[in-house]
């Protein structure tokens, strides 16, 4: 095989990595290099150093160690039967790229994934070596996210969690059956067991409480995350969200990423011809937030079809179906009730509750508190405001949905 230059390898192995949506570099341990003995800092909120024209942020150097793979996952550009160009980085090359990019302030750190070569253990061992070299030889204190290979040995996962800030294992599909169809070598149970293992290790690694009473985990301090591909199989949104809420409850995940299945070069026959609308991905994220921060249950989100409304956000859609629970009085409603008002976010609700202690909240103050009044006005009562007939109006939905488009004549 021809010897590829570093630039050629980088082009191939970053092209192969772009279908993983995760980009977070936040949370985890606070580290810095103020002592002059190492490089980098992390902790607190992450930074997006650039944005690609696909609207996604570039925060980490997201690459595969290799795109050679012995698995045949239908949705993946790197599956064994794909005719893409293949390449492989050496440990030193990944370390060098990470450090040099980091020193120029291009990135927050490294997100390393890989195709499965030879065996899961061999692949994982090489990835762990990269993370260890960065930490021990280069004194790197930036962010490291390692993708774990589900069937890799316990010792390797153990070491991976020691060097990395975050570990992730993709569940890939919304149901066990579609995983079996699309990724015959992967096992849903194997993936769940690996996530359970990470949770147990994180809990075992928590040491004495800090002055704020928290007990930070030393093992994968920024937690674990996963990704599910949307629109490749026939699963509806409620199935997807049900899986997410089970995953959040079971393994303490920091995030579930939803990745609308994207057309790839040299597609497999099993894939649908058309990708799902990107709006579906967006609505799923909104619903995910409602589940985690707004006290919604899975059964409350989405209509009878189990799909989210693409035209309006899931919270407004819920409010329109439950008009009997509105209007909510901004000066009397509980936190739970306020959180259900479209156009009110968690911060706005916090500010409203704080302001109520000083006096009555008036309608004109709400904007400064961060409320989106165009959405909220029909659903609230505030000092100087009552929605009158707005809430009952037949055309209320039309105020939120995009205007119907006339079909093109030509």
């Amino acid at each position: 095989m021809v010897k590829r230059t570093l630039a050629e390898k980088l082009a191939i192995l970053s092209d192969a990595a772009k279908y993983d949506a995760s980009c977070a570099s936040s949370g985890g341990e606070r580290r810095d290099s103020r002592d002059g003995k190492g490089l980098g800092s992390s902790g607190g909120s992450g930074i997006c150093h650039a944005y690609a024209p696909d609207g996604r942020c570039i925060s980490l150097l997201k690459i595969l160690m290799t795109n050679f793979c012995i698995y045949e996952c239908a949705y993946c550009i790197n599956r064994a039967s794909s005719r893409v160009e293949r390449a492989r980085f050496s440990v030193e090359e990944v370390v060098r790229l990470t450090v040099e990019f980091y020193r120029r302030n291009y990135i927050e750190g490294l997100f390393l994934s890989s195709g499965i070569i030879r065996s899961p253990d061999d692949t994982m061992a090489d990835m762990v070596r990269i993370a260890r070299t960065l930490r021990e030889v280069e004194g790197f204190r930036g962010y490291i996210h390692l993708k774990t290979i589900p069937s890799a040995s316990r010792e390797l996962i153990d070491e991976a969690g020691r060097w990395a800030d975050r570990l992730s294992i993709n569940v890939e599909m919304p149901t066990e059956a579609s995983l079996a169809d699309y990724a015959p070598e992967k096992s849903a149970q194997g993936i769940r067991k690996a996530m359970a293992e990470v949770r147990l290790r994180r809990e075992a690694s928590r040491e004495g409480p800090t002055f704020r009473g928290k007990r930070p985990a030393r093992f994968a301090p920024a937690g674990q995350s996963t990704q599910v591909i949307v629109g490749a199989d026939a699963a509806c949104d409620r199935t997807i969200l049900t899986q997410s809420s089970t995953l959040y409850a079971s393994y303490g995940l920091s995030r579930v990423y939803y990745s609308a299945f994207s057309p790839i070069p040299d597609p497999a026959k099993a894939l649908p011809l058309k990708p799902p609308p990107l709006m579906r991905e967006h609505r799923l994220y909104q619903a995910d937030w409602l589940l985690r921060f707004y006290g919604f249950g899975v059964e409350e989100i989405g209509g009878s079809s189990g799909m989210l409304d693409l035209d309006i956000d899931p919270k407004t859609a819920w409010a329109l179906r439950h008009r009997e629970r509105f209007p909510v009085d901004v000066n009397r409603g509980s936190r739970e009730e306020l959180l259900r008002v479209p156009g009110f976010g968690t911060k706005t609700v916090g500010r409203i509750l704080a302001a109520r202690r000083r006096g009555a909240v008036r309608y004109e103050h709400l904007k400064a508190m961060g409320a989106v009044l165009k959405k909220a006005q029909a659903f609230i009562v505030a000092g100087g405001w009552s929605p009158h007939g707005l809430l009952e109006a037949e055309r209320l939905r039309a105020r939120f949905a995009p205007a119907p488009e006339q079909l093109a004549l030509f």
Partner: protein
Amino acid sequence: MRAVVLPEVETVPAWRRAARALAAEGVPADAVLWSVGEATADLFAGGEQAGAPPRTPGYLDQEEGGTSRAARPRLPRAAIDTIESALCHSDPERFARAYRLVLRLSSGAVAWGDRSDRDVRTVLAHAKAVGRDIHKMHAFVRFREVPGGGTRRAFAAWFEPEHPCVERATPFFARRFGDMDWVIATPRVTARFEAGALRFEATRAGMRPPEDATEELWRTYYASIFNPARVMVKAMCAEMPRKYWKNLPEAALIPELVRGAETRVRAMAAAAPAPVAPPRAEKLRAAARALLAEAEPVDAAGRLAREIGACARCGLCGPATQAVPGEGPAHAALMVVGEQPGDREDLAGRPFVGPAGQVLRAEAAQAGLDLGAAWLTNAVKHFKFAPRGKRRIHQRPDAGEVEACRWWLDLERALVRPRLAVALGATAAGALTGRGGDLLRRRGGIEAAPDGTPVLVTVHPSRLLRLPDRARAEEERARFREDLARAARAVA
């Protein structure tokens, strides 16, 4: 009218000193004219030397020589930090507004955080704008390597922030790039970090450092990580506004990437799937199958555990992590049967490792019952739960699920053939004897399973964890211990 000219470098500390002195004198807000001028024209430099490290924001609470206690403004810490952040805004009115707000806050005319007040609102909005500008500076500064003097590598960058926020933004770089020397030059102020010390000076000549070789690799990465199938230029521009593009090496690629995207997507759609997989792929898949094939278990217990692991006789296998089969010596005299695995058991794949398991183990040790010699299992092999945020709430298995799982319990009993089974709780009692009710009256008694195996019925140890009354809990624990002791005697 008083005129205060603040220096261009270290403007905020100079404002702080001036404001403190003016407030002490009782000068009203509308009697001061603020401006930024030459770097040295600090009328109030007084006791503090230029270049001294910025003081902590607690400054307004500190005792100052010559300032009477009554005249000293007192502000909440959060207010001070936000006001100082808003002072890094480019609005020329910012100094006057901040001084006015300090006076009004300390006199109690307005409460900090009251968004219905115009000054508070503006200061909050400015602080937010400055925070965003600082965040964008942290994101978009691009260093280029330049020849260094000693052992430390040296880097330089040119950046144009929207607001004069360099002094507030650059300590971040000192924490992050502690082992290298760097310079960030902006149109007015330059930050210099050499040998671990950060200092600021007026920018002499606005110059960009020359490009270095790694920049081409970065552009390669930027172009390759872009997915042409999902072009969202608006989303990109919202987060990476065009005003920053001129100093970003990768931004020059954007027009070409956007123009070429449609052609690339059309080419992907036109490329038909390969009619047959290349022969290499079949070989690789055979390798994968060989690799993933698990070794055949050597004993009957191992085979049974594997079968249980693959069970889908009811719906519980969906959300649970794994089935938890029984474990212990193959021909144990005693079999202990619980209800179902809990959260910990589900994660670890082993029975009785959670809180209730610990109670059982502790009480068994006290009662002289050797659990290491017993077969530990559950009536139902998968964890039944309802997700609640970050926790799983235990749900009692229903009759259908217990019945479906009895298949495995019977196989375990056939395998182990215990002389005595201990049923912990109603579910286990039901699965073993066929009758689950009336538990508290039956506890401590030995009954018979349909096949004649003696079954000692007692409560589930999780019950002992739930009793709120301490005396009652102690009593219950003692009774539980007695039941276990009875089991120990029965198999001795």
